[in-house]
């Protein structure tokens, strides 16, 4: 197979400052660096870097969102470590990231392989993508209709003779239901991205496989996976970032009153519930939780990129 590799850092645009004395063009490029990057950098600093530092500063206080602030040092952080609800929320967040993540990727990849050779694949792709287009609020409105004791599911089950169905919406089952809903909502999205990656693979590789007598597994192992690895990497980073931020689906599924049951909380829900839910106006503690989730995302993304790092394959 004819694949060539090269280091990403060798790409000319990757590092304008990296190469010294590259002639006139490089010089003008360096000169234009500040006027071109400056405004974006200033904007980014204003709307992201500064608020992050302000948040860090708020997280060191006890504060009701307005009025006097009391300096408490790192106490909001030590309280988090001892807060069973927060630790549970952290486990839930990681569960969503790993369990739902694996399910989404396995399903997306499987669907990609099936759809590749299927007739009417464009229609099928749209149908799979559809759940992602629907606002989470619609699921919130539907969940009661479908899963209430006298809802659609139990009515269907009754027809099959199931008289004692499980309590789908019971507090202990709610998180599993949310995980299933997340898989349903997100699989189509990642299928679409991975399919775009698989579609790029030139046909002659498959012909090559057929001539070499490779079976379906070998074709996936030696052609499809290596040639779509960078797409997988991007998807993994996207999922990591969005999974740590999962919020509205839990709120919609669980919060009939001021907050959903704590069994279903993620770090994002914990943050909001601590800062804004009814009786809770602990902005300092909420911000501390937000900072922890920011650190979590950053660490996970860096780790993931390290694990997923491969030489870019050009074809």
């Amino acid at each position: 197979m004819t694949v060539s590799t090269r280091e990403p850092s060798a790409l000319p645009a990757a590092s304008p400052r990296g190469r010294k004395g590259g002639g006139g063009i490089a010089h003008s490029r360096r000169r234009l660096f500040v006027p071109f990057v400056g405004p974006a950098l200033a904007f980014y600093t204003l709307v992201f870097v500064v608020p992050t530092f302000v948040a860090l500063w708020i997280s060191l206080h006890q504060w009701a969102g307005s009025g006097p602030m009391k300096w408490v040092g790192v106490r909001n952080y030590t309280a988090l470590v001892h807060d069973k609800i927060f630790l549970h929320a952290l486990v839930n967040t990681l569960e969503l990231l790993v369990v739902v993540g694996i399910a989404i990727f396995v399903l997306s990849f499987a669907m990609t392989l099936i759809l590749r050779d299927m007739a009417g694949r464009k229609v099928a792709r749209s149908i799979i993508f559809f759940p992602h287009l629907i606002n989470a609020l619609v699921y919130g409105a539907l969940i009661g209709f479908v899963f209430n004791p006298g809802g659609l599911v139990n009515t269907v089950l009754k027809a099959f003779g199931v008289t004692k169905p499980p309590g789908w919406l019971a507090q202990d089952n709610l998180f599993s239901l949310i995980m299933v809903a997340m898989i349903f909502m997100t699989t189509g999205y990642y299928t679409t991205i991975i399919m775009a990656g698989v579609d790029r693979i030139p046909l002659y590789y498959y012909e090559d496989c057929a001539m070499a007598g490779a079976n379906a597994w070998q074709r996936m192992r030696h052609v499809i996976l290596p040639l779509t690895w960078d797409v997988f990497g991007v998807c993994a980073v996207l999922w990591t970032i969005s999974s740590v931020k999962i919020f509205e689906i839990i709120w919609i599924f669980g919060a009939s009153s001021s907050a959903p049951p704590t069994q279903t909380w993620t770090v994002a829900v914990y943050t909001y519930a601590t800062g804004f839910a009814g009786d809770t106006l602990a902005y300092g503690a909420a911000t501390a939780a937000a900072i922890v989730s920011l650190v979590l995302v950053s660490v996970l993304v860096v780790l993931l990129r390290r694990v997923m790092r491969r030489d870019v394959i050009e074809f």
Partner: protein
Amino acid sequence: MAHRSTKTRTALVSVTTLALALGASACSGSTSDGSSAGGKTFTYWSMWKEGEPQQKVIAAAIADFEKQSGDKVNVQWVGRQNITKLTAALNTHNVPDLVDGSWANTVPALVNTDQALGLSGAFADKTADGETASSVIPEKYTKSVDINLPSGQPWMLPYNVQTDAFWFNAAKYPELKTNPPKTWAEFITLLDKFKSQGVAPIAADGDVAGYNTYWITTLIDRTGGPGTMKTIASDKTGQAWKAPDVLAAAQKLEQLVKGGYFINGYTASKFPYQQTAFANNKAALIMMGSWLPTEAAAYEAPGFIPDSFPFPTTGTADSQRLDLSGFVVPKKAKNTATAQQFAAFFLGKKYQTMWAANGGIPLRTDVSVGASAQSEMTALKGAKTFHQINDGITFTGYATKVLNPADDQLFLGKITPQQFVDTMASTQADYWKSQS
């Protein structure tokens, strides 16, 4: 430190907000002298949304007030998020002059943070009928619900009352109107009767933690009167939960859970599924706030007549729940005098009567209420003592993180009363440790 923090925060406010604030102050001018010469403007962020029956009453009052005083009310129908919105706005110069909310929501945001203005002015101002506001506010209520700042001035001008009760369909069970159960034993007998008739005795939307806590709060306050629950919650060691009376209260709740008195599936449904079941005669009773008739009107069975009786006694304590909602003025507001004049104006009989006609319980006791609220009104008038929602506990995050999770477990039949009090004791001790 606090001063420095405020300065830094203010500096961080976006240019847009500053521009808005400048615009607002330019429009309003500086007219907080209390005179009623007219021509002044104040801003009101309402807890009601456009189209709600309550909003229509306030809108009518605003129209009358503007006509009579010549002042202008710049109103925004924000909805229940108005206090959350206010919390953020308090860090800017764009602060409304008047907000309203429930006692439980305004205390953490405005009173505990020392940002509520003393409203002696409003209490002395005239209602739409010309009498002073303080003369129509029942003293019995303000003695029970603490609406005073440390200075002694009230921080809320209440206009609405909420209570809770057991609701039933008076068309189906007229005997409950004339002869409601008064004691716990009578109550259980009634529930058994419903059960033997094949009717689910009590409907409950178990997914609403706030509703679930009505039971334990009331049962605990029934052991030692109003304030009992708050005293227990204030115990830094959490050991107060281990008192035999508290365990007995939790056991009464377990008696209902284990006795199968709650409607099937109450542990796994989504609000308002069970409330709808109640309004369609699939359960005999529901314990709910005074808003039930208004809320259930949309889906109740034809001929349904909501009526209520108070929570039974388990000993000698017989307090009624009483929660107040009303107007609050932030200290940082600029046009506080006009805002207070409107707050007092709204207590006029006309608006309180309109309020009652919409199914709400007005603050004034000299206004006749709708048919569905009459039993509640009788209970409120006859009550010697009152308790508030969650017994007036406003410790930040206590309900969300300490009480609700453990109470849900007990209410949904996951833990025993003993496990409940043990959990409360230990999580409460942790809670207070984290707050110290």
